[in-house]
C-alpha cells in the first residue's frame, strides 16, 4: 500500500496537534513540515516513545522500523523535523 505524501503529512500533523495540545511550550505557530520536535515542541525521551505508539496506531502498523527515523549514521539524532517523519512513513508504509 502506498499513501500519498500530503495525506501522510496531514495525518502526522493531526497526531502531533492532538498530542501537544496541553503541553507547556512557548511555540505558538501551527505545526508544519519545518517544525522541530525537540526545539519547537519540547519533546523528551518518553514523548518520542509515545509518538511512535501514536503513529503506529494512526497508520495501523506495528512493524515500522523506527530506528531508521531516530538514528542517523549510527548516532541518535538530536532533533527530528516533521518532514523527516513524513519521509520515513512515505518510505515504509
Amino acid at each position, binding site marked *: 500500500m502506498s499513501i500519498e505524501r500530503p495525506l501522510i503529512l496531514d495525518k502526522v500533523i493531526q497526531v502531533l496537534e*492532538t498530542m501537544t495540545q496541553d*503541553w507547556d511550550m512557548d511555540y505558538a505557530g501551527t505545526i508544519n513540515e519545518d517544525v522541530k520536535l525537540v526545539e519547537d515542541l519540547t519533546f523528551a*525521551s*518518553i514523548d518520542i516513545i*509515545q509518538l511512535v505508539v*501514536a503513529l503506529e*496506531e494512526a497508520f495501523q502498523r*506495528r512493524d515500522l*522500523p523506527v530506528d531508521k527515523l531516530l538514528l542517523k549514521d549510527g548516532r*541518535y539524532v538530536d532533533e527530528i523535523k516533521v518532514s523527516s517523519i513524513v519521509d520515513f512513513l512515505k518510505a515504509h508504509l
Partner: protein
Amino acid sequence: MSQTLFLGLDGATFHLLDDLICDRPGQGIVMPFLKRFMERGFRAPLRSTPHPLTPPAWTTLVTGRNPGEHGIYDFMRVDDRQDQVFFTLYDFRDIRCETIWSIAGRQNRRVSALNFPIMAPPPNINGSLIPGFTPWRHLRRNMTPASLYERLTAIPGFHPKELAWDFERENEVGNDMEEEYLADWVRYHLPREKLWFEVARKLLAEDRPELLAVLFDGVDKIQHQAWYYLDPELQPADPSPLHRQLRELCLSYFRNLDGYLEQLVALARPDARVFMASDHGFRDSATIVRINRYLADLGHLVYQELDGTAAAQRREASPFAYLNWHKTVAYCPTPSSNGIIIRVAQSPGQPGIAPCDYLGFRERLIGQLYRLIDPATGQPAIRDILIREEAFPGQASASAPDLTLVLADHGFVSIRNVAPPVGQRPRPVGTHHPDGVFMAAGPGIRAGARGEVFPIADVAATLLHSLELPIPGDLDGRVARACFRDDWLGDHPIRRGPATLPVNRDRPTTEAMPESEKQKILDQLAMLGYLEE
C-alpha cells in the same frame, strides 16, 4: 442490574493494614472505615502471579488469565535480535486476552476503569477508561471516550500533571532515598491520590456505571521507600523526631485513603457489592542480589565496556541490561523482571548456546544459581527458581523468561556491575510479597468472615459473578465462592458462559537494525525503569 465497586490497593498487605485498623497509643485508628468494612465483610489473602509484579499481576486480575496466557511479564518487553537486544514498553496491544472491561461492557454493563496499568493505548469500552502509568502529556488522548478529558476539567483544581505518572519521580522508586527526600516523595502522592478519588467520585455519581474500578497506586509507591517507617515490626523503641515525622506523614496518606474509600462506598447504590484487592503484598528486603554480576562471574555474561562517554555512563546506569551481546548467553534483562533469559543461537555462529544444549545448560545454570550464598546468613540467596513452561503455560509462554528467580527475602534483583554478587542494603526497603489482600462487603457477602488464600485470577470471575454475568469457560480463575453466603449463591447460581472473545492484535515484527545505531534507541529508553539498588 446491581452495581459492583472494585477498589484496587496496589501492593496492600494485611501485615500493614491490620496494624492500621488497630487503636494504637498516640496513633489511634488510622483506617477506621476499613476496620468497619472488614468487620461487616469477608477477607482473605490473595496469591499473586508467580512473579508478583504490578504489570503481570494487575493484568491477571483484570483478565482472569495467568501471564502465560495474557503475555505481560514486566514493564519492559525484550526483543532479542541476536546481535543486539531491544527493549521497549509493554502496552495494551500486547495483552492477548479479553479484559473484564470488555466482557462486562459487551453484555450491557457500563464500566468505568481508572488507573490500571498496561491500558494504553486504550481500548473502546462501554463506558470510560483512563489508563494508569501514563505520562501527563499523553493522558488526554489515551482516555476513552475522547470527550472524557473535557469532563474532568470541571473538577476543581484538575490538572493532568497531578493525575498522571511523573516518570522522573517514579524512576526514584527503587533508589535508596535520603530521609529529607523521602518526605517529598510521600507528599507527592497525597494530591495525586486525591485527584484519582475525585475522578472516581465524579464518574460514579454522574455515570452510575454497573462496574466502577479504580486503582490507588500510592500504597505501593510509599511502601517501597517508606517500609522502614511503616512496618510495625521495624519501629524503633525510641524513634528520632525525623522518624516520627516521616511515619506520621506516611500515616496521613493512609488516613486520606481511608476517607476516599469510605466516600466512594457511600456514593455507590445501596445494593452495591464492594470488592477491594491488591496485586501483591509487601515485606522488607535487606539483601541485594546482583544477579548479572554473578552470571558474569560464572562466565555466562559479559558487560559492555564503557568508552568513557556520558552517553555510555547513562546507559550503564539505566534499569535494563547493558551487555556485550556477542558474548552473553544468559542474563537478567531488568531488575523488576527477576528473570533470566537463556540465549539460543538461531543459526551457527550467532550468539547463544546451541539449541540441542538448551536443557542441559538450563539444568546446570539452575544448580549454579541455587549455590549462590548470602554471606550474611550462610543460606542460599535464591529460594526458588521457576521454569518457564511450568510457571507460565499458555499461548504466551514463549515470551516469558526462561527462569524466574524468587529471592530468599522476595526482593528484586540488581543488574548492576558491582561486586560482590550478594550484599546488604543500608536499611531495609519494601519489596513485593506474593500474598496480597482481598476484601468484600455488601449484599450476598459473608459478614465478618475470613477465607483461605486464593489466586488473583479468581478476582475477575468473582467480579463478573457479582455483575450477574456468566463466567467465560476459558478463564483460568474461578468465582471465589467463599466470599458469598450459601443462601445468596443458591439464589444466584454461578453460570458458565461462552469463552472470551479472541484478541487479534497485530504482533510486533522486527526488522534488522544496524548495530551501531541500536544503542541510541536504548539511550532513549534509559529513563524508564523500576527497581535498582
